[in-house]
């Protein structure tokens, strides 16, 4: 039962990863006893499971995911939301308003209008129906302030880091509140624009170098260095 790659080596679609009694994990497929890569990414072997951590992919909705989306259409009984996926999501008015409403009397644009950003959770989705969203939980709802960063959805786990090490470090260092949408959209809200910019810069850096090792430490150094630089500039301008 040979494997043909080393861990964390780059594979391209069609590369033969393993032959024998293995289980095909994410971004791989099985033909007979052979497992091939289906996307470009880094190979990962875990016991009997062979998977590829994709370097490029798009977001596919999953029930329970937190996503950040843009309202693209206001209908009679709800909104259509672009969640950066191949499918548009639906957000029902009854879910947002929490009370009965009449389309004749209530104007939905007063609650959410085209172009508004929302943090929501996917409550249902399958192959035949577009995903449905809900904002009925604390922390969800319309976004009123902050910065939005868009990255490849597959890199969200890297931004979180092992047991959340990366994201908690960024939060601590910049003092920003960060919401990660599983669809690759990130909301950063901080006390000042500088702090938000610092967090944005760190996230962009992670996206660029997601497949390298020792990233958390490097990002930490980067943020600290950047902070120092800014303090120096501030002091000079005071003097």
């Amino acid at each position, binding site marked *: 039962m040979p494997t043909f790659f080393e861990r964390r080596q780059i594979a391209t679609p069609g590369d033969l990863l393993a032959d024998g009694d293995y289980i095909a994990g994410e971004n791989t497929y099985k033909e007979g006893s052979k497992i091939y890569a289906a996307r470009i990414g880094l190979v990962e072997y875990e016991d009997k499971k062979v998977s590829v951590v994709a370097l*490029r992919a798009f977001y596919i909705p999953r029930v329970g995911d937190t996503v950040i989306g843009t309202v693209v259409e206001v209908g009679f009984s709800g909104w259509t939301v672009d969640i950066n996926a191949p499918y548009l999501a639906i957000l029902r008015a009854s879910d947002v308003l929490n009370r009965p409403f009449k389309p004749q009397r209530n104007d939905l644009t007063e609650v959410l209008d085209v172009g508004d950003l929302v943090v929501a959770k996917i409550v249902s989705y399958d192959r035949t129906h577009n995903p449905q969203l809900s904002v009925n939980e604390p922390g969800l709802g319309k976004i009123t302030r902050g910065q939005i960063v868009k990255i490849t959805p597959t890199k969200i786990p890297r931004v979180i880091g092992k047991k959340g090490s990366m994201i908690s470090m960024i939060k601590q260092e910049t003092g920003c509140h960060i919401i990660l949408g599983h669809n690759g959209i990130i909301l950063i809200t901080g006390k000042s624009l500088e702090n938000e910019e610092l967090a944005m810069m760190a996230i962009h850096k992670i996206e660029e170098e997601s497949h390298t090792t020792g990233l958390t430490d490097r990002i930490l150094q980067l943020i600290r260095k950047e902070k120092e630089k800014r303090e120096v500039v501030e002091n000079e301008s005071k003097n």
Partner: protein
Amino acid sequence: MSQKTEKLIDKKGLRLDGRKPDELRPIKIEVGVLSNADGSAYIEQGKNKILAAVYGPKELHPKHMALPDRMVLRCRYHMAPFSVQERKSPAPSRREIELSKVIREAIEPAIFVEYYPRTAIDVFVEVLQADGSTRCTSITAASLALADAGVPMRDLVVACSAGKVEDTIVLDLMDAEDKVGSADVPVAYMPNLGVITLLQMDGILTPEEFEKAVNLAIEGCKKIYALQKEALKAKYVSVKEVEE
């Protein structure tokens, strides 16, 4: 042109551009050249210069064209007006419409179309400069653009042509050889799976010659495949090397 006594293969057995019969034209591939597209690739194969862009998967408009059980793949092959000696009208010609279909059908078997029902992927192939076997070069570029867009694929699709010029079976025809030569066999191939996804023939070959041409084209495909993989990895490896 065929009236000229110019020989396509000289006494030494070399072709017009000095290639041996089983030699490819020089190839240069770059992946991710367009930032607006979800995936893109640029390829130069000899004098061929082709750009491929992929958008999607996305919701299909008009909606009634969407399929409930699979993804729709749309492909547009287009030659720029300046891509050939005499200005080509930018309107899609019969040939371009046909080639769009041929390219679509050559890359479709590689994509897991059943994974994402009710969606569509758009593939745009723009020929900036044409010098024979553009359909093959386009397929090579289009499959790279798809891989760059993160579309799950069974394998990369590579294409290469072979043909008969002055009684010799040659690899990777260029324009002059295509026009004057007696046969042209474009082949698209998935190297890891050993599957042919496109096989055409224009001209006359004996069964033996045909077999020889197909085998030669597959050999060519395998060589291009190595370059294709290298180009795809290069986009990410460059970042990695700087760090280490």
